[in-house]
């Protein structure tokens, strides 16, 4: 039998429907691979019994010809999504024993459509990080290695477990969340596809909150088509999230193969940062040529406030985080460390429960919101956010349909290589992705080339609000032109 774990999600779906394969065999094949790949630490919790039960139910439904759009498809779930009765930690010590009594809206829609849960995936603690090194449950080792070098690399972050698992064939797709680049950057680092939809496209209900005005859920998969299939199930209005958009969800898969002729693609000159290595420029230039060859029109544009986005983000995101994470007080759920009175209990609990990066961000957020500093920092950052959003609005007014940029300023780096001295060094990873969250726009990362070490590099396409279909159509063109799918060498199961 051919290797079931190397199928694309679309192939598996079609073969399940045609009864050429069973959900049971497909699930079992993945569970076996997960066991062999434990050294990657992509899964923080494997749920084999759960998966087998769901697969059996899927086989019964498929047998009756009643399968949903994702019937029998094994997925991994970022450990930021609350799963009913299944431990959900946000990879923080403060939630190490948390067992939700409810299901997040996004995951409940995946199960409604027939998907099978394989387990929960590692991430940076509370999604705060760009390398998965802040997880309280250990680093994720990327399935990728530099040519001729077995030094362990990061998969990116914060959705590092999701990216590693999809890239290493440990699931057919995975959920992620993206606050400043947490889907697109790890997708780029691991040679797979990841899309952050428009703010409001997916419900945030039941997702552990980081920065509520920026957080958005989205899918990872190995092809653009597969992410389109997943997003259709994940998206939609939810009465439990008042910021979820009351807009019909299109059949995104239909955008795959759609002509991009005549579409106007903006190339923002501000994304050509000084000292950027040629290996980042190269796929960007190629991407432009590929889209041009497909009939798109390439237009140079300017997004003048780009360089302020990261600074504004590192005020707004910690401010919202400090407010959101106030709930972890040792009273209603999570860790409790006793103290001499109730305030001391809060302080000891939070000191023991939060990791260094989370503590730093809560403290910065507390400071920029505190009396006397609010106007100078937080309010100013919110005004700069307006200007960043206006830059994009101006591009759309000019008739631009989508914007093409590199996804990251470099390929993957080694564990421990970045940010130990100065956290700002790590934050610079998000330089190309963070503007998109600030403006609430959709962005997709598609594999497009390799760096000098043979590691994957991605291109980012940024769309208009609710322009996901454009991104799938354009992303598919890049994917086709870039050549065969990038797969890491399977060093972990030799």
């Amino acid at each position, binding site marked *: 039998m051919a290797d079931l774990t190397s199928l694309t999600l679309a192939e598996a779906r079609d073969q399940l429907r045609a009864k050429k394969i069973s959900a049971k065999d497909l699930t079992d094949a993945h569970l076996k691979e997960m066991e062999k790949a434990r050294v990657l630490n992509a899964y923080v919790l494997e749920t084999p019994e759960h998966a087998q039960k769901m697969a059996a139910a899927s086989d019964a439904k498929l047998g009756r010809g009643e399968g949903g759009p994702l019937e029998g498809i094994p997925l991994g779930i970022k450990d930021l999504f609350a799963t009913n009765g299944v431990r959900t930690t946000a990879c923080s010590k403060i939630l190490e*024993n948390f*067992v939700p*009594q*409810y299901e997040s809206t996004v995951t409940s829609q995946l199960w409604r459509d027939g998907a099978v849960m394989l387990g929960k995936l590692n991430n940076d603690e509370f999604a705060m990080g760009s390398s998965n090194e802040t997880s309280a449950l250990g680093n994720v080792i990327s399935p990728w290695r530099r040519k001729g070098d077995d030094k362990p690399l990061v998969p990116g972050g914060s959705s590092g477990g999701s990216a590693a698992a999809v890239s290493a064939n440990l699931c057919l797709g995975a959920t992620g969340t993206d606050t400043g680049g947490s889907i697109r950057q790890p997708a780029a680092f691991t040679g797979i596809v990841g899309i952050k939809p428009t*703010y*409001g496209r997916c419900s945030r209900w039941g997702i552990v909150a980081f920065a509520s*005005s920026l957080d958005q859920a989205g899918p990872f998969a190995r092809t653009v088509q597969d992410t389109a299939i997943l997003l259709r199930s994940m998206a939609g209005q939810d*009465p439990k999230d*008042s*910021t979820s*958009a*009351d807009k019909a969800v299109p059949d995104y898969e239909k955008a795959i193969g759609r002509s991009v002729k005549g579409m106007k693609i903006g190339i923002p000159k501000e994304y050509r940062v000084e000292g950027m290595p040629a290996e980042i420029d190269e796929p960007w230039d190629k991407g432009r040529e590929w889209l041009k060859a497909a009939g798109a029109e390439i237009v140079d544009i300017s997004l003048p*406030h780009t*360089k*302020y986005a990261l*600074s*504004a983000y*590192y*005020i707004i995101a910690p401010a919202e985080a*400090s407010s959101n994470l106030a709930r972890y*007080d*040792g*009273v*209603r*759920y*999570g860790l*409790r460390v*006793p103290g001499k*009175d*109730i*305030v001391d*209990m*809060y*302080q000891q609990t*939070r*000191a023991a429960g939060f990791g260094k990066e989370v503590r*730093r961000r*809560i*403290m*910065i957020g*507390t*400071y920029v919101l*505190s009396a006397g500093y609010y106007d100078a*920092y937080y*309010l*100013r*950052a*919110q*005004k*700069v*956010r*307006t*200007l960043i*959003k206006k830059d994009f609005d101006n591009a759309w007014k000019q008739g631009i349909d989508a914007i093409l940029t590199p996804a990251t300023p470099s390929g993957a780096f080694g564990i421990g290589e970045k940010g130990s001295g100065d*956290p*700002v060094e790590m*934050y610079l990873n998000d330089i190309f992705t963070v503007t998109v969250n*600030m*403006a*609430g726009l959709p962005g997709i990362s598609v594999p497009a080339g390799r760096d000098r070490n043979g590691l994957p590099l991605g291109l980012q396409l940024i769309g208009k609000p609710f322009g996901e279909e454009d991104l799938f159509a354009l992303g598919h063109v890049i994917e086709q032109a870039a050549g065969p799918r990038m797969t890491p060498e399977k060093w972990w199961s030799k």
Partner: protein
Amino acid sequence: MSVDAATVRRIAHLARIAVADHEIEHLRGEINNMLAFVEQLNEVNVDGVEPTASVEDMKLKMRDDVVSDGNYAKRVLANAPATDDGFFQVPKVVE
């Protein structure tokens, strides 16, 4: 702008996170690094610019003001570190 040790202690207290004395200096350095990094926002002319709190171009929905959920105290308390007779339990607050 930069923060001194007393400010770091004040922030830690506001955030309700216990910070040991030997950590203050290190935290002060990290926070000041961040503040230096975001200093560049002062170059931007924001006169007359409205702040953005939400990017969405929509009105928040209203619903009827009625009880629509509840009656499962056990589930609500399921993850609590300490409970008593259907209540969350905390150290004595009022003497």
